[in-house]
């Protein structure tokens, strides 16, 4: 079973909390790593900024960089009005980033390789956009689906396309992150598995195992990049969707 690339995604209960109003809310390894993700993200930001140094220490500047990176991302996409969503976007970015990076440790569960987690986050983003959009603009928010300068005949078709594209956003947002993490981890595991199985084949096998080993090393580097990139992409798209809520006109 150790070589099964799917094994790493298996969920097992640590503290069973079964049947709470018909729901199984057990504390699982996924829950454990969610707690760890939040603890690391919040703890890192909290502890490194505890000195409030005017001249930042090395770790404090990491926190400040994360802050300013997210802030400029949001400001560029949604303008200064969008800054009210900053804690939300920053939370999403840090959560996804830390979860992705934690997944790079062997034997750690990757929270973001669970479709329901990424989908819930995406629904949260889209839900925020819809609720805020209607709160701020009322029915004018529906203008989001009606692009300007489209001939009347084509309008129903275009509106339909816009509606479909809007509601496929949470799907694409969540599947992108989920699929990247899942595929990356499976590939890593498969190549790492080759190393183990080849090295049991004697001297020639050990020699041959160097190739998948190199591949595993390269993939690990790539996965670190993907871990950061996907967190960035998730946050950037969140910012752009928030921009839609703020400025529904195209």
């Amino acid at each position: 079973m150790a070589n099964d690339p799917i094994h790493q995604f298996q969920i097992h209960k640590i503290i069973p909390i079964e049947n709470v109003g018909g729901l199984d809310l057990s504390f699982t390894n996924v829950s454990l790593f969610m707690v760890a993700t939040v603890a690391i993200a919040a703890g890192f930001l909290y502890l490194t900024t505890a000195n409030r140094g005017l001249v930042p220490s090395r770790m404090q500047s990491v926190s400040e960089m994360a802050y300013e990176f997210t802030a400029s991302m949001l400001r560029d996409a949604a303008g200064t009005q969008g800054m009210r969503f900053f804690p939300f976007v920053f939370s999403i970015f840090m959560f996804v980033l830390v979860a992705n990076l934690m997944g790079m440790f062997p034997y750690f569960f990757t929270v973001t390789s669970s479709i329901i987690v990424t989908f819930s986050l995406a629904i949260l983003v889209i839900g925020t956009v819809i609720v805020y959009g209607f709160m701020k603009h009322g029915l004018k928010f529906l203008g989001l689906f009606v692009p300007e300068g489209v001939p009347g005949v084509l309008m129903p078709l275009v509106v339909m396309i816009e509606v479909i594209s809007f509601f496929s956003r949470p799907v694409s947002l969540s599947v992108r992150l989920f699929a990247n993490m899942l595929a990356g981890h499976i590939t890593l595991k498969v190549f790492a598995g080759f190393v183990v199985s080849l090295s049991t084949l004697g001297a020639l096998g050990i020699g041959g195992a160097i190739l998948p080993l190199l591949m595993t090393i390269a993939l690990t580097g790539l996965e670190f990049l993907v871990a950061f990139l996907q967190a960035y992409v998730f946050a950037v798209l969140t910012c752009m969707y928030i921009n839609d809520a703020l400025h529904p006109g195209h």
Partner: protein
Amino acid sequence: MFVTEALAAGAETAAHGAAAAAEGHGGESFPPFDASTYASQIFWLALTFGFLFWFMSKVIVPRIGGILETRQDRIAQDLDKAHELKTEADEAIAAYEQELAEAKSSANEIGNKARESAKAAAEAERQKVEKALGKKLSEAEARIASVRDKAMADVGAIAGETTEVIVKQLIGGTVTKTEITKALKSVEG
């Protein structure tokens, strides 16, 4: 929520198909698509992410925002101060230059004044000396004129006397003074 459930259900059937076809695990489904764990995952995600969001908006964002703002303020303040000091330095330089120019112009003025007064004094002295010389000159001229007049007056008498003597010597007779004078006068014309 309707969308969620519909999608979850769709995902589940897809997962079962994929798991059965590709993995051959039999009854065991592909873990990410195992809907029986969804409630727990959503619940714990809501709990942990909710906490993270709360902590971010209450503690982290105000704190880092505050740090950055303080730094910004401090930098702006320092820049202002530097600007102020520069202005002060510029002012001092301008004042110094103005004073220097003033000193130069007053030095010029003093020099001019001194030169002028020296010139005036020299002129006055010269005029005084000239005046004195002129006086002396005219005095001398007057004296010369009087001496000459006197001499000229004496010339007649000398001539008369000389004539008397000469006549006496030449003709041995005497000539009266009146005759001589008369003769001289006719010669003089």
